[in-house]
């Protein structure tokens, strides 16, 4: 609540600073704005920025640093009480104090020393918050003072304000880069920790995947096996099935819409197809698990096949449906980008429409079509909800579409749902799988985007 008051105070002073700066700028030139270098509003904004930015930057840094400092102090007093405490055990002890301080129920049953430490912890936090608020308010006042002093007719307030805005925009544009760096760093970092338990060779080429680790070391199969080949194979199988559905349907739809259909038909069919891409994947997952999978199983039984109830076929089929619009809309674009002169040439030689399509347009659009299929493959590999709900958990190394297989995304979800302990290979394996997933989809995307772009330039 205190933080809320602090934020409100700072924001209110910022608004006041804006008005004051405006008035003061007008005041220094006797109410004649044309004598000012910048419009009065810029002077107001200039003052507002001086009021807001130093305090905001300070608070951000403080919030980032404070918990560490408080933990250090608590850790210090813990070590004084129990000199042997180091490393993870110390971390755990500090964490316990922290959780006691926010959990009144647990606090009531804690020991007296712990209660004292919790009190000390809370006291430190209180001091920290108070100090932060005081310094922030001082900074606000100092900013106001400096800002109002620098207001003068020749002051280049607009340039100053615009510079801040520019840098803010640059900062926003870099967030995308930071996200990528964050993804790569976190995946790499956690995967490295995983590879301390399991060698990368075993992970990438091992044939046995059973990540369940027993709670006690004397239980059977306690080591867990992290050979990811069955998981990769399952992903490939489901992706292949979905492509077998999506590529012919998507490609033929695109060809029909680009070459045959009337404008009116196209204006109806294209949005309808795109709805398929807009339906949330969890809906497809439900559809796959409750409608398609039983249907596939029963049909299989009727013709004497042994079909698992979580067959790769059901998940792949539904995923294929979802992917159709990705293939069709991109292929549609590239087919439309083939110059009309190529078509006219083929027609002039007496080719029928379908002959033109097969022998002229598709070869001309081939790189773009391949690009769109690669994007679709990357989408299928990374798709999660359908497979989580409709594919199996057990890692079977098989190419039989009627068997249950598991995928990379399913394993990531199952490994990370529930309790997360970041020192067990079971949890960390999710990040190693995530790294593989990220790298593979990234390569596919980069190749596909380059191919499509180069193809577009070719006919521009």
């Amino acid at each position, binding site marked *: 609540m205190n933080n809320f008051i602090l934020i409100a105070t700072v924001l209110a002073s910022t608004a006041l600073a804006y008005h004051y700066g405006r008035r003061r700028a007008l005041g220094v030139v006797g109410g004649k704005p044309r004598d000012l270098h910048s419009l009065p509003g810029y002077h107001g904004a200039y003052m507002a920025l001086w009021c807001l930015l130093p305090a905001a930057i300070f608070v951000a840094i403080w919030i980032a640093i404070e918990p560490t400092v408080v933990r250090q102090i608590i850790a210090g007093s813990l070590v004084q009480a129990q000199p042997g405490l180091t490393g993870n055990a110390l971390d755990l002890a500090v964490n316990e104090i922290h959780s006691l301080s926010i959990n009144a129920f647990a606090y009531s049953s804690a020991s007296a020393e712990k209660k004292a430490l919790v009190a000390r912890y809370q006291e430190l936090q209180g001091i920290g918050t108070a100090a932060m608020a005081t310094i922030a308010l001082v900074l606000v006042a100092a900013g106001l003072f400096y800002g109002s002093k620098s207001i003068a007719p020749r002051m280049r307030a607009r340039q100053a304000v615009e510079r801040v805005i520019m840098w803010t*925009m640059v900062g926003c544009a870099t967030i995308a880069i930071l996200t990528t760096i964050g993804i790569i760093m976190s995946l790499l970092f956690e995967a490295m920790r995983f590879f301390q338990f399991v060698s990368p060779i075993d992970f990438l080429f091992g044939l046995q995947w059973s990540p369940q680790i027993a709670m006690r070391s004397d239980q059977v199969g306690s080591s867990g096996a992290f050979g990811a080949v069955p998981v990769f194979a399952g992903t490939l199988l489901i992706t292949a099935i979905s492509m077998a559905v999506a590529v012919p349907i998507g490609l033929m739809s695109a060809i029909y819409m680009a070459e045959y259909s009337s404008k009116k038909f196209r204006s109806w069919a294209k949005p309808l197809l795109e709805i398929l891409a807009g339906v949330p994947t969890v809906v497809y997952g439900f559809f796959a698990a409750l409608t398609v999978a039983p249907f596939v199983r029963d049909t299989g039984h009727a013709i004497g096949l042994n079909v698992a109830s979580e067959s790769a076929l059901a998940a792949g089929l539904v995923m294929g449906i979802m992917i159709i619009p990705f293939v069709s809309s991109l292929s549609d674009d590239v087919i439309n980008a083939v110059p009309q002169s190529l078509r006219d040439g083929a027609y002039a030689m007496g080719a029928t429409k379908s002959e033109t399509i097969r022998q002229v347009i598709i070869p001309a659009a081939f790189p773009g079509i391949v690009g769109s299929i690669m994007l679709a493959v990357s989408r299928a590999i990374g798709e999660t909800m359908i497979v989580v709900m409709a594919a199996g958990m057990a890692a079977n190394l098989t190419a039989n579409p009627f068997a249950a297989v598991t995928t990379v995304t399913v394993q990531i979800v199952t490994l990370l749902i529930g309790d997360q302990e970041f020192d067990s290979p079971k949890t960390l394996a999710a990040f190693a799988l995530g790294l593989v997933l990220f790298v593979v989809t990234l390569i596919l995307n980069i190749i596909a985007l380059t191919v499509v772009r180069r193809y577009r330039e070719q006919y521009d």
Partner: protein
Amino acid sequence: MINALPTAVARGPNLSKDRIKKRYAAEARYKFYGLAAISVAILFLAILLVTIVGKGYSAFVQTAIAIDVNLDKSLIDSDNKGDVETLTQADYRAVVRASLRNLFPAGVTRGQERDYFSVFSESAQYDVQKLVLNNPSLIGTTQRIWVKSAPDIDMLRKGYVGAADDGSQRLNLTQKAFYDKLVADGRVRTQFNTTFFTAADSREAEQAGVLGAIMGTFMTLAVTLILVLPIGIAAAVYLEEFAPKNRWTDLIEVNINNLAAVPSIVFGLLGVAVLLQWFGMPRSAPIAGGVVLALLVLPTIIIAGRSALKAVPPSIREAALGVGASRLQTIGHHVLPLAMPGILTGTIIGMAHALGESAPLLMIGMVAFVVDVPTSLTHASTVLPVQIFLWADAPERAFEERTSAAIMVLLVFLIMMNLVAILLRKKFERRW
């Protein structure tokens, strides 16, 4: 000198005519394949929607049974205190059970009694509690109220399940006979399922609703929107209007395009590693979910924003610069307002995407079972797609129809958002 034209040579049967026929047949076949492909795709869509609606529409109504509750003073407020605490804590279960026994046939065994009780929902006691708290003067009277039936009876009435004594059905014939008697007495009706829209999740299907998930979704998306709108617009303006063409901006551009195609689950891993572990954000909370979704849709919104800015003709910029506006004034006063409808359309579509997203939220723990409607950004909560995922896993038949109904609610939200986007585009679209 012109030679005599070669006279037509008799070629036997006219092969070219046959070939043309074949080629035309191939042409017709090819065209048919195209049409068939589109039809199959649209057919899939239709099957999907029909299945969902067909399974889900019945969840919007619910079976209710009328019971005459004897609000026995000795059970509710034996000491005649009449204060709120006493009235809240009274044993309404006993009150309800005592009243229910009046409905049972005479001379039932304990086992049969248990069967009969399980025809009614456990929520009856809360209904009675509410009734008494609203109007304590009713104590001592007998009131007829409509309570929810147990989900099994609801399923029986909707015709999804039957009853049998061999254990193949969840209901046995005793219960079925009792239900039939209640129907004959006019004590059973089908009413609108308000619980579905006013309750959060519950283990009991008849008490489960989507309000908690809707509130969670709302808060999560609010966080996303607050982050993504200013950052997305600022980034799009910078990249489109100011960025010099150099390696650095090329890198940002390639990076944004690739980020838009990164699987959403990877963003979930980022959320776990960075937001939860590093920044210590609370698990399962809308604030963490909102940040993850913001990172997820940011590339989409930047790309949409850039194309909206690109569509504003350079003459606007030149005119503004010509009368002495600075570059930022040009953008802020002229270009951005003109590009705003396009940017907003892109944002709404991006938010619709975020609304349907569930995989990254599973990662950061928004699969928690939350029985309260969340009230703050740091409370554990869930979102609509994840609620669907959770219910889809529940074995009871009653949850199957609720899952479909929740999907219908989600789809209605999505359709509304897309409609707004389309209308916005129609209304403000300008051809220069």
